């Protein structure tokens, strides 16, 4: 009990002894956490935007005019078996013509379709992919069919797919790098704050070591002080986030109207818990680094 009181009092004393430093590091930690949370939200939005775009990746198989229905159904069944394929739609010659007519009605540069006597458009299978990165493989497998069966041509969009994949990769790697740097800066700030606190109390620490206090007891107030910086920083960051959550969510939903990105209460609660847990962990971790470095000298 006496020990616990000592640890609590010493931690609070340490935090309040140097208010400028404590407030400065608390603010910096809060700022870092706000940036981090904002970044997580943005990254999540972008990731779902890319995911949505990935769903739009498709291949088109043009079919010869003399293909029989049974052959087409057979081909469709084979294509659907591929796990990378999410869906296959059959577009008949008539459907294709109908689409062209609809398009022509909205565009002046395409002449009146009615003047064409026969239907020159081929029937096709439109393949939607579940995994955009499989696009090249699926396309090349289907190209092998050209000439042999009813497939006359395979059309895909390798550049678009590659760009999409690059964006996804840059987002996730870049995200991790930025996140890592922010965590490092936060840790650095806490380590330094506690190092200053340790330095300010080095005489006390020396006496504690001389009279036979354990390393754990000597460390405890500093670890707690680091956690205080983390907790106050997280609380401040959460206040800012709660204040900003409404307007930001609204504008994000407006901006990313079509996106299936969920920024509902569940996501925000997990984000808040994450921010808090991270702040505590960094506070305790940073402080432990500082005091243990001092004690092991």
């Amino acid at each position: 009990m006496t020990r616990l009181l000592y640890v609590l009092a010493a931690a609070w004393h340490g935090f309040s002894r140097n208010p400028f430093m404590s407030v400065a590091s608390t603010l910096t930690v809060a700022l870092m956490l706000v940036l981090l949370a904002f970044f997580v939200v943005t990254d999540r939005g972008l990731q779902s935007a890319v995911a949505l775009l990935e769903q739009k990746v498709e291949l088109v198989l043009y079919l010869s005019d003399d293909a029989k229905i049974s052959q087409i159904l057979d081909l469709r069944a084979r294509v659907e078996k591929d796990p990378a394929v999410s869906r296959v739609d059959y577009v008949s010659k008539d459907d294709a013509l109908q689409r062209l007519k609809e398009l022509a009605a909205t565009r002046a540069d395409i002449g009146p379709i009615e003047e064409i006597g026969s239907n020159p458009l081929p029937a096709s299978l439109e393949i939607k992919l579940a995994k955009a990165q499989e696009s090249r493989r699926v396309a090349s497998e289907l190209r092998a069919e050209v000439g042999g069966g009813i497939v006359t041509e395979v059309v895909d969009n390798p550049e678009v797919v590659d760009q999409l994949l690059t964006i996804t990769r840059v987002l996730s790697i870049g995200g991790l790098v930025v996140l890592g740097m922010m965590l490092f800066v936060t840790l650095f700030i806490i380590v330094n704050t506690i190092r200053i606190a340790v330095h300010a109390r080095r005489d006390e620490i020396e006496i504690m070591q001389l009279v036979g206090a354990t390393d754990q007891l000597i460390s405890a107030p500093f670890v707690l002080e680091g956690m205080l910086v983390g907790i106050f920083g997280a609380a401040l960051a959460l206040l800012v986030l709660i204040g900003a959550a409404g307007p930001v969510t609204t504008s994000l939903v407006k901006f990313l109207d079509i996106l299936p990105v969920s920024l509902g209460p569940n996501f925000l609660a997990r984000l808040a818990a994450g921010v808090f847990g991270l702040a505590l962990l960094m506070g305790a971790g940073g402080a432990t680094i500082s005091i243990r470095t001092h004690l092991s000298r």
Partner: protein
Amino acid sequence: MITLEDVSKRYPNGTYALRDIDLHIPAGDFVFIVGSSGAGKSTLNRLLIREELPTTGHVVVDGQDVARLRRSKVPLLRRKVGVVFQDFKLLPTKTVYENVAFALIVTGHDGTTVREETDRALALVGLLPRRHHFPRELSGGEQQRTAIARALVMRPKVLVADEPTGNLDPVTTWEIIKLLVRVNELGTTVLVATHNAEIVNALRRRVVHLDHGRVIRDEREGLYAA
């Protein structure tokens, strides 16, 4: 209580602070460690509380080989060996009482023990009336008595005093030495490293003379110089 066997301490720069020391100090002994500056007195003290490790040999305190002690066990050794320094090492923001109680609090004693033992130690050094004063309000002798109370409050088996009277005038020096003799009479083994020939010669206690890291003299009722 304390046994040094073939102990040498060599610093990384190659100089020997202690060389081939064999020393046995039984429980209840009162020993003056004398010798000029740099003879190795402070190094000897630091070995006893494992602030430093011997380069070779064994330092045994209360049956334990100090060098073999795990880091986590060092605090337990230090609770058995109280230390007092020339510069007192008191915390200026704490009162006399708080300075002494601090040792008990940070070693995990409960509130009742802290109060009772702190009062006992302060009574022993005669500082109960000054308990609420801060170190800056005390004389040098009173500050040193506070430091001795802080060491004694742990009820150590050994009290090591490194030049305890180095900063004190002759009258106060005698006060402190008498206090250390009293502590010894109450059963604590006492080691006093000192330059002060007058007190060594007056007390006629065991004298261990160090010179350039070696024991050159060890007499039961010795004088400062041979």
